[in-house]
């Protein structure tokens, strides 16, 4: 009854770009998207006339969508997609664009996420985020995502006996990884003591569990091996992808997420196991979600993240390099671009084009995305395994 999924043959990823983040920006999402396309053009030589597919993600482009963006930026694509899925949008862009290229609906797809951050953007983005949030979340203290993830963290800690020191180890390792990334917004050393002593924001979430909203853009290209070769671009291929929305809706609290439904599919399609990947670029909007990904993506059994974290090194030279650019926790969360940096960073590492330190001998990467708190949990999950073409 289960059909065999078609492989991603004939498709490659290339040209990961990051437009340096800024804490606050007076520019618009359109400007940031323009910067991302310009960076793509510099990396590949592709101009507006070459790009025939466009996939866009943003929270701050209103009133425009991908439609407004193509006219604004002078594109005439024959394939267009707009992803409202935030933290899951990078991997979703990758897998959608891959099928478009594979089937010949497009040849060169630019996947772009761009968000600005005005002084009051964060509050305004929150205020109009979703109907369930308006009706059933904001009226309860308006703690934003901090409060939502505080409840998840509280339940997760009670259920699995994981402690703040475990979450702290992840945050400290990611900060160490950020130290070599010149584009990371937070590049001062963080110790476990700093982490544990930080002020509470929404108990048990403390300051260093939270990402810093910022402005920025991320982009990459999905195309055919032939087109990439003609431009002399280093490329990676897609071994497997999964995507799931609103998984386990009857779980009272989100202690597992969509990856757990599709994890077998991911690794069987990839043809390798989690122990064989050279790094994990996980979605890290709150460390509890990283712990959940370690379990749900099969790096350790459910409920044993604490143990796994305690005995694993997550630095660039460690056993399982995690969020090697520092992740959103240290590099910053540029809105929807936060859901693209796991893809761009993973791609950079397997192509050996790092922003900072290089994961030694890196060839494969697991990428994972998580997005959109519509009510009480993240609704969208996605994951991919990629491998450099040598």
């Amino acid at each position, binding site marked *: 009854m289960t059909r065999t999924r078609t492989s991603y043959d004939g498709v490659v990823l290339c040209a990961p770009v990051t437009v340096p983040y800024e804490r606050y920006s007076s520019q618009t999402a359109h400007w940031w998207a323009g910067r991302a396309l310009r960076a793509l053009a510099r990396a590949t030589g592709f101009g507006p006339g070459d790009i025939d597919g466009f996939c866009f993600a943003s929270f701050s482009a209103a009133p425009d969508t991908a439609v407004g963006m193509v006219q604004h930026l002078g594109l005439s694509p024959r394939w267009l997609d707009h992803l409202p899925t935030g933290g899951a949008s990078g991997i979703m862009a990758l897998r959608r664009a891959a099928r478009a290229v594979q089937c010949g609906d497009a040849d060169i797809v630019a996947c772009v996420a761009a968000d600005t951050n005005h002084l009051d953007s964060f*509050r305004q983005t929150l205020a109009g985020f979703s109907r369930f949030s*308006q009706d*059933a979340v904001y009226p309860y*203290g308006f703690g934003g995502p901090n409060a939502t993830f505080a409840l998840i963290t509280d339940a997760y800690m*009670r259920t699995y006996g994981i402690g703040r020191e475990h979450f702290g180890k992840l945050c400290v390792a990611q900060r160490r990884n950020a130290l070599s990334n010149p584009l990371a917004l937070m590049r001062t050393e963080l110790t476990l003591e700093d982490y544990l002593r930080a002020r509470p924001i929404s108990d048990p979430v403390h300051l260093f569990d939270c990402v810093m909203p910022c402005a920025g853009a991320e982009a990459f290209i999905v195309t055919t091996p032939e087109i990439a070769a003609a431009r002399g671009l280093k490329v990676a291929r897609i071994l497997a992808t999964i995507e799931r929305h609103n998984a386990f809706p009857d779980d009272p609290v989100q202690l597992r997420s969509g990856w757990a439904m599709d994890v077998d599919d991911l690794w069987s399609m990839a043809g390798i196991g989690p122990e064989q990947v050279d790094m994990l670029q996980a979605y890290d909007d709150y460390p509890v979600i990283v712990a959940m990904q370690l379990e749900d993506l099969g790096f350790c059994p459910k409920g044993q993240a604490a143990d796994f974290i305690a005995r694993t090194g997550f630095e660039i030279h460690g056993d399982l390099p995690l969020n090697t650019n520092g992740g959103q926790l240290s590099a910053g969360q540029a809105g929807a671009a936060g859901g693209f940096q796991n893809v761009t960073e993973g791609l950079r590492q397997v192509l050996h084009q790092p922003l900072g330190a290089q994961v030694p001998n890196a060839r494969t990467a697991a990428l994972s995305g998580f997005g959109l708190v519509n009510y*009480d949990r993240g609704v969208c999950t996605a994951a991919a395994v990629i491998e450099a073409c040598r």
Partner: protein
Amino acid sequence: MSQHPPRDKRDPLARRKERHTPPGLRSSALHALSARAAAGRFVLQSCQDCGAMTYPPRDACPQCWGELVWQDQARGALVLCETTIRATTDLYFRDHLPWRMGKLALDAGPTALAHLHADLKPGDRAEMHLMLDKGGNAALFALPAGGRPDMDDRQWREFTVPVKDRIVLVSDARSAVGRAVVKALHSAGAGLIFAGMAPPARAADLTDEWAGLDRVQTLPFDITDSSLVAEGISKIAGPLDIVINTARFVRGGRNLVDQKRMMDIAVLGFMRLSGACAPMLAGRPAGAFVDLVSIQALAGEVGFAGYAAAEAAHLSLLQSFRHDMRAQGVRVLSIFSGPSDDEDYQSVPPPKVAPARLAREVVEALRMGREISCVGEVASDAMERWLADPALFVREKNL
């Protein structure tokens, strides 16, 4: 006039504290929930086709896409997890940090986020209440189940109108209902009650049972007289937390002189009173305006056609006033009743509502922050029939 304790005076040079209300944007379905919460009901949506319960409010059943209807539910719940919010970008909640909330598994089925009483922790059983927040929208509040929870809970107080130690104006304290309201407020611990008495003073005023009570001060007041309203309000001078409009003039028949007076009290009098006290209530941390409305306002009534008309206009104004005051965080409460057991309804047979019962309900509505209350069988029955089938109800009341 009785003695009363000296009142704190506000520093006249201090910048007045601005009052904020919680975020107010809601879906149409949530407004439907609020309309039911306003009457103190605890309801959730259930599916007409498959019976599934759902929350937050939706427009289709998530199990079978069937039609959803509102249904009263069991109030029990279990606390699953909690957080204390210490940072927010919202001005109202910034003024009230830290704020505790949590997630509960409702006995009715769904899970829900709710405000948590200070004594509740994960694993505890809770009793759910649908309260109206300062912006007038429904919000779930979890109280400890069983026992007697501390009703002075800091967060709970944001959803109610505390009476203890607060300053109250009763617009007409001379009627049987007015006297009962003053007495009930006094027993509930009101800090100072201004008892409005329309001039001229009468000999009987001096022998009133509460005339000698401390914390009660009589005040020449008449809502048909703009200057007396202005003078009365200026005599109160200091803070004013709660206004209770007990003034009414009830006559049957179709006498035009009576009708004019009924309109002057129920309609213009309401406008004078509400207009004069609105700015004073707006500055208070839990201001409230309570109005006693005849249930006859809903559909008219043969025999009291003129009074019912005046009350219908009164109710209409009261509803708009509620909207105006929401932005200020002031609660506007309507207390509906049928005939009261006093001189106004001498011609009407029982069942009638004792003034003391009506007065108790005023205090109870404040205590629960309830926008809509119906006192007595006549009012409850009428409201139920009107909500079920307004066209039929109008016909039956005017047969």
